């Protein structure tokens, strides 16, 4: 299984965390993987993004010009990254904050998830929106197995927030379920 994805959203939405989690999971599954965060002044202005590449072979570039998938958590990120998505690629958007009408391409596979709403209403914490989105991506792509993601959660969640791990699991599941519906 090989794939790559750019994830993007506001700072504070947990983008780097889910990217890290995905990479860790791929590693646990014995895959080659690279995780590359945006860094430096680009962090200003409240946006964050990262790239994860998963492969069965040695990985060349950890940065991709034409990602096979995009996970878009806010409006500005859509504008910036949509043009890069490979034709036929997966586009997962947080429809709670991103309007579908901004999707100006029709050569991509759109998966529209109201991640914020689900997080708030179903999980009980807006913070979980990115986990919902990650769950959707994992289900849609099959890049890693969901249970491995669960297993890896303790490695990315700091001690202080350990008690929220069940919430994270729920969020991932909700996302995955939605992906199933839409698939």
């Amino acid at each position, binding site marked *: 299984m090989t794939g790559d994805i750019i994830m993007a959203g506001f700072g504070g939405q947990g983008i780097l965390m889910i990217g890290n989690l995905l990479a860790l999971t791929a590693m646990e599954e014995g895959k080659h993987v690279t995780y590359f965060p945006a860094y430096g002044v680009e962090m*200003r202005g409240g946006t964050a993004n990262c790239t994860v590449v998963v492969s069965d072979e040695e990985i060349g570039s950890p940065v991709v010009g034409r990602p096979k998938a995009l996970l878009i958590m806010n409006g500005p990120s859509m504008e910036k990254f949509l043009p890069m998505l490979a034709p036929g690629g997966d586009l997962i958007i947080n429809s709670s904050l991103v309007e579908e009408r901004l999707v100006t391409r029709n050569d991509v596979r759109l998966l529209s998830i109201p991640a914020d709403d689900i997080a708030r209403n179903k999980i009980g914490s807006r913070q979980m929106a990115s986990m919902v989105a990650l769950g959707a991506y994992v289900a849609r792509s099959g890049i890693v197995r969901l249970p491995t993601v669960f297993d890896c959660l303790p490695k990315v969640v700091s001690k202080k927030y350990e008690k929220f791990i069940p919430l994270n699991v729920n969020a991932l599941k909700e996302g995955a379920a939605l992906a199933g519906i839409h698939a």
Partner: protein
Amino acid sequence: MSIEGKTEFTKPVYTRPRSLVDVKTHFCPGCHHGTIHKIVAECIDRYGVRENSIGVACVGCAVFLYDYIDVDVVEAPHGRAPAVATGVKRAQPDKFVFTYQGDGDLAAIGTSEVIHAANRGENLTVVFVNNTTYGMTGGQMAPTTLLGQKTSTTPYGRDFRSDGYPIKMAELLAGLDGTAYSARVAVSTPAQIRKAKAAVRKAFEMQINGMGFSIVEFLSTCPTNWGMKPLDAQGRVLGEMSEYFPLGVYKERKQADFA
């Protein structure tokens, strides 16, 4: 003063200063860099020096000065703005020249340049923004970081035994013969903003009157790297920061040495 029943208000009381370019800045929410840019722009307008100014940008969160202040701007390497400004002012003594520098820029890597520009009495104005950290690079210790303050390079809090003491630049520079004006201000309350403007005006006037080197140190916030909400960050300025870095005018030359 209040005109009862007035429903149309057409007289502008506060509009964007002419010299502040009408674009969105990259500054984080609540960062005082924005406020200080505004004040600088207002003073440029006030003295009508916009078309006669050359600004010198530093490296730090204020690096995009040229995008925000509507004057000619040259970019200086990190810390070297006072030297670059010296080169500009010596070549064009009739121009209004100012630098805008962070505390890493001015008080760490650029220590020597600012001290010698002041000591030479270079006739230019320095706007100095002390936010007790390196904002742009992600919140490392600055020379002005308070004792005990946690930053990404003082994860256990700044300890004078290994990291030294927070340095007081307004006082240090006031001690040099070439300095005409040195003051420390803040912009955390409306009253402070008024005083800050007055200080920048004085500093501008020093240059316009050929009195020599002038500097205004701003106590500023970095909500992002302090890990605080903007209002809490202002609270920190009003509290421990101004306790350690007292606000005030440290030097004010009344007459030019050569007058």
